């Protein structure tokens, strides 16, 4: 890190990840500034999700470094649970806790991780449910909700921990097309409020509209990155062009 530049929200240096003989990430370098929204696009198997999962070490990097808010996540002595509290994550399959109600999904992490009492945790849960527009579902169980509603609850669950950054791993890929809009609306709102976000997505219109920067990955490397209109509208690389051509007929 140079002394003059402000500490980035997320910095990834030379990140490598192998699953056995398979090299999924082959040296990734990128920085995400505070309040910046970065969309990562690319064909399946390109390593986008793995990159995301290495940032909070759900996947253990094989090499390289990851910093979040200036703290080295990849330091073997780091308190990984404390680091993860500052990194919200939203999964493709929502991964809500099915044995708990919506409210309990939001209060349990606060009470067990942040040691808040029931009243305060409940208040935080209510305000975040309202933020994603699901106050009336407070007492429902996750599997009584539609996919889009579940994903919005999952976003609220990540938000109750008051994370500094949010990671979205293909948040709309498991949704019926008519449910995608509500989830993207919540994410758009979040971006507008200044949340630092990395979003792995296939929603090109969302990337074009909301992202400050788009990263195109293929085969474990960043092929190109830059302004969304430029990367999506006028890609420089042949691989980006052919990927986008298949995606946007």
């Amino acid at each position, binding site marked *: 890190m140079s002394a003059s530049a402000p500490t980035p929200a997320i910095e990834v240096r030379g990140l490598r990840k192998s699953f056995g003989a398979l090299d999924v990430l082959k040296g990734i370098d990128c920085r995400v500034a505070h309040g910046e929204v970065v969309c990562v696009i690319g064909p399946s198997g390109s390593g986008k999700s793995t990159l995301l999962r290495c940032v*909070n070490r*759900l996947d253990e990097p094989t090499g390289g470094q990851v910093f979040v808010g200036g703290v080295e996540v990849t330091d073997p002595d780091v308190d990984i*649970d*404390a680091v*993860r*509290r500052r*990194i*919200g*994550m939203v*999964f493709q*399959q929502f*991964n*809500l*806790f*099915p*044995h708990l109600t919506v409210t309990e999904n939001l209060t*349990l*992490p606060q009470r*067990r*991780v942040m040691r808040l009492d029931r009243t305060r945790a409940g208040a935080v849960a209510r305000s975040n449910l309202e933020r994603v527009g699901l106050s009336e579902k407070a007492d429902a*169980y996750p*599997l*009584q909700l539609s996919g889009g509603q579940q994903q919005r609850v999952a976003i609220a*669950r*990540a938000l109750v*921990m008051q994370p500094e950054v949010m990671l979205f791993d293909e948040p709309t890929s498991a949704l019926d097309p008519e449910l995608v809009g509500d989830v993207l609306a919540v994410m758009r709102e979040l971006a507008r409020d200044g949340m630092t976000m990395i979003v792995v997505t296939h929603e090109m219109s969302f990337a074009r509209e909301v992202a400050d920067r788009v990263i195109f990955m293929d085969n474990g490397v960043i092929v190109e990155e830059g302004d969304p209109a430029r990367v999506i509208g006028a890609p420089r690389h042949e691989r980006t062009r052919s990927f986008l051509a298949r995606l946007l007929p």
Partner: protein
Amino acid sequence: MTDTASTAPARRRLTRRQRARLIRSTQYVVLVAAVATFAVAADWGRIGEAFFDVEIIRELFPEMLTVALKNTVLYTLCAYSFGLVLGMVLALMRLSPVLPYRALATIYIEFFRGVPALLVLIAFGYGIPVALNSEVPGGILGTITVALGLVAAAYIAETLRAGIQAVPRAQMEAARSLGMSHGRAMVSIIIPQAFRIILPPLTNELILLTKDSSLVYLLGVTLQTRELAKFGRDALNQYVSMTPILVAGLCYLIITIPLGYVVRRLEARQAQAR
């Protein structure tokens, strides 16, 4: 020739539905005939006296409930609680990344699953007192709790392990991504879901244990520590009648049938949450 070929199959061939109906009515006819034969042939007076002597039943109560049923429930619950706690420890050891823990748990489970509960009970009731010159504390209740609990723990551990492994990995990842430690995620997220999955087999284990508690007769129980099977057997000797055995059997059903009902209700509630 053409004539027979065309008429014979037409006469015999039934439609699929007609055949199903014929088979079903045949089954009913056979059943009704069997029941009727039995009802007519049986000597109801003698059967009633031998199996269901009201006089004897009257004398069996209330001890049948206040002593025998109570003790069966007590032995079962104590052994089950012990087995559940130990089984949980063993299941977590089985899933531990530490090899010696895994090995120890595996050896334990293989051993106690493989030897008869009867043998373990004899060991704790007579073998160990002889060998170490000291008894299991808590008398009969202590001995049966430890002996049957140790055996039950082996089965419960395997059930629990399967349940924990049946919870999707993504649940652990979601919990960890919120900053929960591995242990916290286990306690708050994984194990509660595992219990829902394995509730039916766990109840099955409780029912098996209820019946195994009858093995306590081996330890030489007193009047006050008798449970259902021993109570029934003593009464059989006293009255020279089948009735006490039948009543004891019905008392077991008083325990086991509601258990089955509770599980069905819990499963229904769980289906709602799923």
